[in-house]
């Protein structure tokens, strides 16, 4: 190990990469990115060239024909993307308001039942979506929400994890600040809007990012709640391409690639916040 060299203690952080370490890291990075790369390569290659015994390892026959065919044949594709966008954005917006409100209240206010309500909320994190999905389906059916975006938005408007996260963050804010505002005659709502919200910006940013990712990628509930083609979300729509165009791989790859692009761009813009979100335990993978 590199640490065994007689490096002065303070320079322990001096990093010397052995060739072996370097190779191991690069190979795992390639393996990690390969499925996405392979999808992209296959999407920009006409089906004629993907369906042969020796695949092109890079886009040697570059063409956008698959994308053209996708957008002319899968006529609801933009609907799906729009649906996903509306769902993920509105859920994110609701989360930022509701989770922050509740997180603030649990962190800084004392009221009868605080502890028990809080832990009851936290306990719901353990209940898998697969347990509640049948009653949720029945409720949505009776309220005529199936095949409308509300079926997905309404149940997702608040999350126990988000509340927990915001509470943890707001607990670190100085209470004196809130008291000072109160003495100055600020209303409770005013304190929340003018003192708490601005101070919470970093935490809300992280919350917004991973809420958006989570609901953009959500699959199980939209698969059940959305049964007419035009109301699919992007994940459900892309999965349905497999059924519709069984062996026409080109269209399927184009659909999947186009669906992946927004999230990939999103990731590059916010990479730092993403990794911060992981550290806070927010993202899976």
């Amino acid at each position, binding site marked *: 190990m590199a640490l065994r060299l007689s490096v002065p*203690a303070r320079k*322990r952080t001096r990093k010397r990469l052995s060739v072996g370490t370097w190779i191991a890291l690069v190979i795992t990075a390639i393996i*990690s990115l390969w*499925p996405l790369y392979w999808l992209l390569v296959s999407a920009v290659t006409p089906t004629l060239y993907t369906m042969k015994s020796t695949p092109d390892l890079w886009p040697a026959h570059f063409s956008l024909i698959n994308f053209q065919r996708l957008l002319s044949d899968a006529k609801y594709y933009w609907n799906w993307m729009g649906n996903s966008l509306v769902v993920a954005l509105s859920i994110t917006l609701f989360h930022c308001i509701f989770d922050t409100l*509740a997180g603030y209240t649990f962190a800084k206010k004392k*009221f009868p039942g605080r502890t028990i309500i809080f832990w009851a909320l936290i306990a719901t994190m353990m209940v898998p979506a697969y347990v509640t999905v049948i009653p949720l389906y029945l409720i949505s059916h009776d309220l005529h929400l199936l095949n409308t975006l509300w079926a997905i938005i309404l149940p997702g408007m608040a999350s126990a994890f988000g509340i927990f996260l915001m509470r943890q963050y707001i607990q670190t804010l100085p209470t004196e600040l809130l008291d000072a505002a109160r003495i100055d005659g600020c209303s409770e709502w005013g304190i929340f809007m003018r003192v708490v919200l601005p101070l919470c910006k970093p935490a809300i940013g992280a919350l917004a990012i991973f809420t958006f990712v989570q609901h953009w990628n959500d699959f*199980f509930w939209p698969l059940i709640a959305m049964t007419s083609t035009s109301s699919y979300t992007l994940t459900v729509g892309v999965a349905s391409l497999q059924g519709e165009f069984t062996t026409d*791989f080109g269209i399927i790859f184009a659909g*999947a690639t186009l669906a992946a692009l927004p999230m990939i761009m999103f990731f590059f813009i916010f990479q730092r916040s993403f*990794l911060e979100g992981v550290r806070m335990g927010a993202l899976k993978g």
Partner: protein
Amino acid sequence: MSGVLLGSKGAARRSSGQMKKARQGFFKKYGWSYLFILPSILVFAIFTFAPAIWALLISFQHYFFRWNGQWVGFKNYVDAFTFGDGVFGRAIENTLYYTVITVTASILIALALAGLLQRCNKFWRTVFLGAYYLPAVTSAVIVAISWRWIYNGEFGLFNYLLGLVHLAPVRWLSDPNIVLNSIVLSTILTVPATGVVLFNAAMSGVPGELYEAARIDGAGGIRQWWSITLPLIKPTTLYLVVIYTIYSFQVFDKVFVMLPSGVADSAQFIVTQIYQNGFVSFYFGIASAQGFILLLMIASVAFVQFRVLRTDVEY
């Protein structure tokens, strides 16, 4: 909530005017708090608590698309296992098999990669973490479509590579004896990004003096790793084991996409069974019972974590 107030001593003796005043005081003091948590509480009450309780009721009812009014006791829980020649038992076996292998692999891979990343400078660390993390933020559906193509029997990449070394092609997704392992393999080959990030953070938090002291005492690299690094990242390890186990118990998206037509019993998992029984066959009673069996499995893992985590590490 006002019961708390009224229950206090002397409340009964208060005149109605005092009571009214007290109630007003209560709302003045706590009203905002309840108002602030109200939206979240409503969402949870309507879309989590009520459905959870209703699901529990359904699991004791004869519920085939509509409830026929009969309570059947634990029949659904028995049927859950006997239904369809006992596929569900097979599904639990498959899920446990999948979980044990993928969680073990994920933890080991994450540990190794985080260790290697410790030696990188900040720039390269961010680059590699990004490369590991990108597939994790991409929808499982999209990644699974790529895997299905890689596993394709005729034109897939894997069979092409096998052909290069003169091996016979494998029917990755259509051979009932292989398909479960193909699913497992695709998960193993997905870098456990969360694990790498968390292990990396935990390792950076180990004080350098500890290694210094160990080095002076003559401990080699492996010894340092074994006696310092491993014990100090134990809480992170436990946390990761638990969350990876819980995720693996619920594997669905990738299986649904990679095997659209399903491969009989050989690649059934707990959630694919819930989906099948609930939303293909509409046996809601049985599907609910299976949901609670899943909940029980998850709860027991969480319980074990809770017990083990109470023994904290000391630096």
